[in-house]
């Protein structure tokens, strides 16, 4: 039922068959029991709450969300969807298969739904937002929190397929790059709105910044090297190759994510270049650790 090289499903009787047409017109069947769908939704909700909890309880986000220009907020929401689709495609696969675009879109939809609902419920319970009184604030805050919540939901959902068959994970370079971006987003988004980033950057000298960059690279490389490579031997990949391909690339991704988040939240408006770089490096600490640790989490 799963194409010429597929294996038989584990419990054929319990499965509802979801079909989609592949790019070449052939039909690919993917089995998903109803209970699994509900479990996936619950897991996505739990993941959203878990990964976005620090942000839910950060007061800067409450007033930043209304101050952020609307188009930047919209761009952030679009990026949340793009990340969710990418994660579903490259990470949230079932049984070692790379997910088709249609399934990835469905998975991403569930992740976005879980992220938005989690943000709305938790923020409502915390009395941060009141849906009937100030809907503009409500929508703004929920949109701003949707990015880490959605990515967290995607992370949690991706455990579903992988957990069934440990050791059968697709491990391509693109997947690693995507995973590193998502990990950087989740950790950095929780720290980015805090005033501490600005304060720490203000207190640091350039020498501190250089030391911090070295520390971040060391930590990242320790993670990358410690976790190692899934599904293959690293026999012919030396220190330099791993360092450049994973650590350096991951670090640049982490810094890009940092700069993007700070810019979105208006920290770069009217800010000089050096101060902007310092803030980016400060936020680079959670971003780089998130990027490196994403491979541990998923």
């Amino acid at each position, binding site marked *: 039922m*799963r*194409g*010429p*090289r*597929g294996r038989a499903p584990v419990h054929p009787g319990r499965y509802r068959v979801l079909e989609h047409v*592949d*790019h*070449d017109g*052939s039909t*690919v069947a993917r089995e998903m029991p109803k209970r699994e769908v509900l479990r996936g939704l619950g897991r996505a909700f739990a993941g959203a709450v878990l990964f976005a909890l620090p942000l839910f309880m950060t007061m800067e986000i409450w007033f930043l969300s209304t101050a952020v220009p609307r188009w930047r907020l919209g761009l952030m929401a679009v990026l949340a969807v793009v990340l969710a689709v990418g994660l579903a495609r490259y990470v949230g696969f079932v049984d*070692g*298969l*790379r997910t*088709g675009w249609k399934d990835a879109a469905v998975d991403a939809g569930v992740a976005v739904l879980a992220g938005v609902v989690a943000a709305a419920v938790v923020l409502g319970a915390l009395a941060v937002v009141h849906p009937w009184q100030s809907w503009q604030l409500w929508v703004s805050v929920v949109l701003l929190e949707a990015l880490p919540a959605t990515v967290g939901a995607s992370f949690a959902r991706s455990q579903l397929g992988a957990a069934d068959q440990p050791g*059968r994970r*697709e*491990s*391509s*370079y*693109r997947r690693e*790059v995507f995973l590193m971006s998502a990990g950087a987003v989740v950790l950095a988004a929780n720290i980015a709105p805090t*005033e501490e980033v*600005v*304060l720490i*950057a*203000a*207190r640091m*000298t*350039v*020498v501190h*910044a*250089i030391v911090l*960059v070295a520390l971040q690279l060391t930590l990242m490389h320790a993670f990358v090297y410690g976790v190692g*490579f*899934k*599904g*293959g*031997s*690293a*026999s*012919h*990949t030396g220190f330099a*190759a791993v360092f*450049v*391909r994973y650590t*350096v*690339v991951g*670090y*640049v991704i982490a*810094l890009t994510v940092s700069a993007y988040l700070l810019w979105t939240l208006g920290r770069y408006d*009217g*800010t*000089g*270049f*050096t*101060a902007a*770089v*310092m*803030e980016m490096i400060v936020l680079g600490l959670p971003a780089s650790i998130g990027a490196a640790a994403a491979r541990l989490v998923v």
Partner: protein
Amino acid sequence: MNPHPDPEQEPEQEPPGGGAPPGGRQHEDRRDGRSTGADERTGGARLERVLGAVGAVLLAALLGFLGYQASTRDGDSRVLVDLVAVERTPAGFVTTVEVTNGGGETARSVQVHGEIVRNGTTVSQASATVPYVPADSRRRAVLVFGADPAGADLRLRAVGYVAP
């Protein structure tokens, strides 16, 4: 460098013929939705090299910039306050000012003070606090005066701030 350094493919995902097909059709899903190991391998290797090179250049640029700043940057904050606009409202004369830090350090809790002086006497005063003005950066603040600054002597300055 090894042309196929990607070590991560599972052996059982190799196509039956083995080896990499010469170019083309990279990253495409196969009919069973499974990506072929060899296709991933060549595409992934190229992507790895390009991203690795770009990343190394960017990291070198960042460290170079920080090193340059460490050797040339001056300390101290130099905070100036300039008038941007005055708007007449029922609440008073809403005066937007721009706080600029021309120094090399962040100024924290900048107290902006404004006075309208007419014929030697102060007719209105207002003040505001700006939480952070980083080096070479601008922040805006609003002072609300009870008198019209137009035609009078408007004195704006930062009366104090905390060094980081």
